[in-house]
């Protein structure tokens, strides 16, 4: 017999989080599916969808902080997000469907820790930090250290994600995002790539590249980023970058696509980022 608890305060959550078989429930768009398929068997469901102080978007001290239980729909509709973090809005519009976005939350998408997690791409690019609370105290860690491997995050059993915080003072980047899948909606990415590029004197001043579904977790392509910085975008640079990107990822064969195909796709998407950066 499963036990459902509507959690009202963060204090209450901290008191119950270590109960045997406890799982945090919010939108349910991943958890309920896994529960019904038998992949997980939680004994206590701690519902944080109406918990005080876990929902909402706040702009303060040049950072925007998004509560873990904020729905994807609420994030997309926020004028600060759309105005200052356009790639976050663009990417979240492609997450699931209208019905899923109305329930799914940013915290949920992160703790689910799918290698294909859409929200991770803009958060990696914008260098977000994850605010964690736990029985033994609070801590803040960068998004790159938070995501570990499929289904695994840096959270320990007494901890939960309180919010995600993103610096707003990002330089004027040209954003790029492309997700490859069989249709436009409701896809789990075969491969995805997001980028932020700024050009100066016809050279790449700064470039950030993040990829999904081609490694055990969504990752930045740091080496390739530094190789490209300071270079002019030429045909030979594009070819070089394509090859480097193909080798920088470690995809697997699965039901959605082969590893080889995923490598090809990432190479092509990096080429598109570079071509796009020098166009208009």
């Amino acid at each position, binding site marked *: *017999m*499963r*036990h*459902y608890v*509507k959690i009202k305060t963060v204090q209450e959550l901290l008191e119950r989080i270590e109960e045997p078989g406890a799982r945090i*429930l919010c*939108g*349910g*768009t991943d958890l*309920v*599916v896994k*529960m*019904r398929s038998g992949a997980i068997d939680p004994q206590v*469901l701690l*519902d944080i*969808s109406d918990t005080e102080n876990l929902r909402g978007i706040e702009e303060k001290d040049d950072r925007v902080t998004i509560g873990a239980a904020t729905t994807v*729909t609420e994030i997309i509709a926020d004028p600060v997000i759309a105005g200052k973090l356009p790639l976050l809005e663009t990417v979240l*519009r492609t997450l*699931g*469907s*209208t*019905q*899923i976005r*109305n*329930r799914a939350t940013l915290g949920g998408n992160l703790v689910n820790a799918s290698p294909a997690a859409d929200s991770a791409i803009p958060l990696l690019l914008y260098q977000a930090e994850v605010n964690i609370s736990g029985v033994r105290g609070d801590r803040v860690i960068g998004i790159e250290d938070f995501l570990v491997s499929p289904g695994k995050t840096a959270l320990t059993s007494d901890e939960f994600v309180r919010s995600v915080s993103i610096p707003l003072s990002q330089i004027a980047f040209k954003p790029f995002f492309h997700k490859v899948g069989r249709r*436009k*909606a*409701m896809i789990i990415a075969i491969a995805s790539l997001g980028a932020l590029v700024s050009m100066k004197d016809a050279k790449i001043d700064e470039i950030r590249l993040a990829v999904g579904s081609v490694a055990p977790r969504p990752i930045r392509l740091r080496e390739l980023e530094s190789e490209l910085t300071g270079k002019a975008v030429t045909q030979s640079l594009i070819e070089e970058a394509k090859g480097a990107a193909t080798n920088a990822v470690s995809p697997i064969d699965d039901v959605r696509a082969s590893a080889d195909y995923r490598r090809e796709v990432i190479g092509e998407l990096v080429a598109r980022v570079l071509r796009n950066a020098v166009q208009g």
Partner: protein
Amino acid sequence: MKIRFTVNGRAVEQDVRDDERLLDLIRDDLQLTGTKEGCGEGECGACTVLIDGKAVTSCLVLAPQVDGKDVLTVEGLAPGEELHPIQRAFVEKGAVQCGFCTPGFIMSTYALLSVNPDPSDEEILAALEGNLCRCTGYVKILEAVHYAAELMRQERN
């Protein structure tokens, strides 16, 4: 556990299992069988209902989660014997084939038109992207949504 919520404007108090789905609460406990179960994984949209005005797949919501909320199912649209303009539009434009997906499409359309009385093709496709029709009647569904929007605007004037 006991929950209190409103369904189609009616206050309801109901005993539910802790891990019961909203879909089962609606269909089995309340006998509102207009809402359909398709995939049971949130992919197809056949079980779409509105919670506090937002379209959701009721197969992914647990019944205890609607405690204190306002739920609208397809049965709540038509006030009496007369069809709601969205239902009329689906019938008149031939947007119904086997009909299994129709309640879900109608609820997604209702959620869209409540906030956007004159949507573009693109806006309609985005609002309906979580609903699948295996008879593939999408062109007529698109026509029906435009027509429903027109009927609803006429009604308001």
